[in-house]
């Protein structure tokens, strides 16, 4: 199952490393990463495959939330279908 991870917040050293590490820890495979600075805010969107992860979707979300809280970032994971539904016919 594919999902989208979005990370938004103040830029600092090691954000990508920390998020990738956390995802690797849950056996989540990263398919695509795009990262930019939007209006001064660090903004990263990742497409990931969670099918090999032992953690449930809720646990993954919780784990990323905790990482976000530690680093002062907003990190969320959502199933890809919601974006498809809203933007593509």
């Amino acid at each position, binding site marked *: 199952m594919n999902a*989208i991870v*979005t990370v*938004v917040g103040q830029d600092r050293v090691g954000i990508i490393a920390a998020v990738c590490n956390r995802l690797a820890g849950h056996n989540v495979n990263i398919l695509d990463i*795009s990262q*930019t600075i*939007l209006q001064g805010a660090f*903004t990263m*969107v990742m*497409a990931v495959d969670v099918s090999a992860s032992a953690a449930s*979707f*809720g646990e993954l*979300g919780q784990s990323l939330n905790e990482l976000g809280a530690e680093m002062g970032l*907003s990190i*969320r*994971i*959502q*199933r*890809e*279908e*919601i*974006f*498809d*539904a*809203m*933007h*593509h016919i």
Partner: protein
Amino acid sequence: MLNQKEILSTVEMIDQQHLDIRTITMGISLLSCCDPDPGRACEKVYEKICRCAEKLVKTGQDIEDEFGIPIVNKRISVTPMAMVAGASETEDYVPFALALDRAARSCGVNFIGGYSALVQKGMTKADERLIRSIPEALARTELVCSSVNVGSTRAGINMDAVALMGRVIKETAAATADRDGLGCAKLVVFCNAVEDNPFMAGAFHGAGEAEKVINVGVSGPGVVYHALKSVRGQPLDVAAETIKKTAFRVTRMGQLVAQEASRRLDTPFGIVDLSLAPTPAIGDSVARILEELGLEVCGTHGTTAALAMLNDAVKKGGVMASSSVGGLSGAFIPVSEDEGMIAAARRGTLCLDKLEAMTCVCSVGLDMIAVPGDTPAETISAIIADEAAIGMVNNKTTAVRILPTPGKTVGDTIEMGGLLGSAPVMPVHPESSAGFISRGGRIPAPLHSLRN
């Protein structure tokens, strides 16, 4: 392939513009629970609701977690209780309300709707018993919502029922006086009630519906407001087009969630309700959308026209995004639940008469309006009659949810908290309508041709 801009726009809608699914409502038929023994019937009601809706809240939470979209309410609607209780040999229907309340608690939902009667043409004994039991039922339960349909375009308006409902609303306020008359916030009087409405307090599961069904109500005033900011000052057709596009996106999300819930709960998908449902939160207001269109304060001249455009554009955008649209589907204007409406009412710009005009062009009616506690029952009945007449003649659903709060008068504010918000007490006309209401009888159904 998704691009970053699309993804971030969705995240922003959820994070900053209050985009959410307002409710997943499971409709459950209770017709199979009829029993001559009232105790047995209540047991069957409790057991069936718990069996059908056991996983509703958990499933809603799972979908929330996975899709990252808040689902604010999980609710249940049931067959109008007068139809079920009418089979039992009893005159006391309050135990049925208590059974609904218990079942709602066991399932973990935040409201259960369907303590209802449909009396647009006439009242059965069961209908009358149920209606007369509403004040006690709402005082002794917390999660039960009640509705009564008093008119329709086909049947006209049952003015005996309208007169009775004025008294029932007053009694309900009195019975819940210790909670600022909160019972009235859970009681709706309809004309042309719909059978698949997922929104409270007027939800019930119509007799023409399946055994059980999943209906979803979307929301999104904040998203529409933000989209309109980007076309500020441009012609109204550009604004309408912007609203349509936004409503389309919001509804697609609602459709996805509805299908997912339906699949996981093994329950047929019913409808998506395209309503713009405000909350008291800043930035989630229908009134502020109207003001963004160029009105200084909601309620001033031009408000009805702006609302008509908004309501129509939401439907046009939403209807293409869902395989099945139903429910109330329109912009809601509940005064106490909309931060901008509260402000406009406090200022005195938004008055009862203007709200009545606004209900001619939008869903649903005079909703969550606080009036002085000493408002006569006949005046409340007359307000209901006016609103029902608008629905009857215009072939649309209208409703009245009015709060004659004991001990409160114009200038006071009642606080209900949560999604119900707070309402400034609005003045009503002091001149009497008692002579009109005491006539009773029926207002015949209107002509369906020569429509001007």
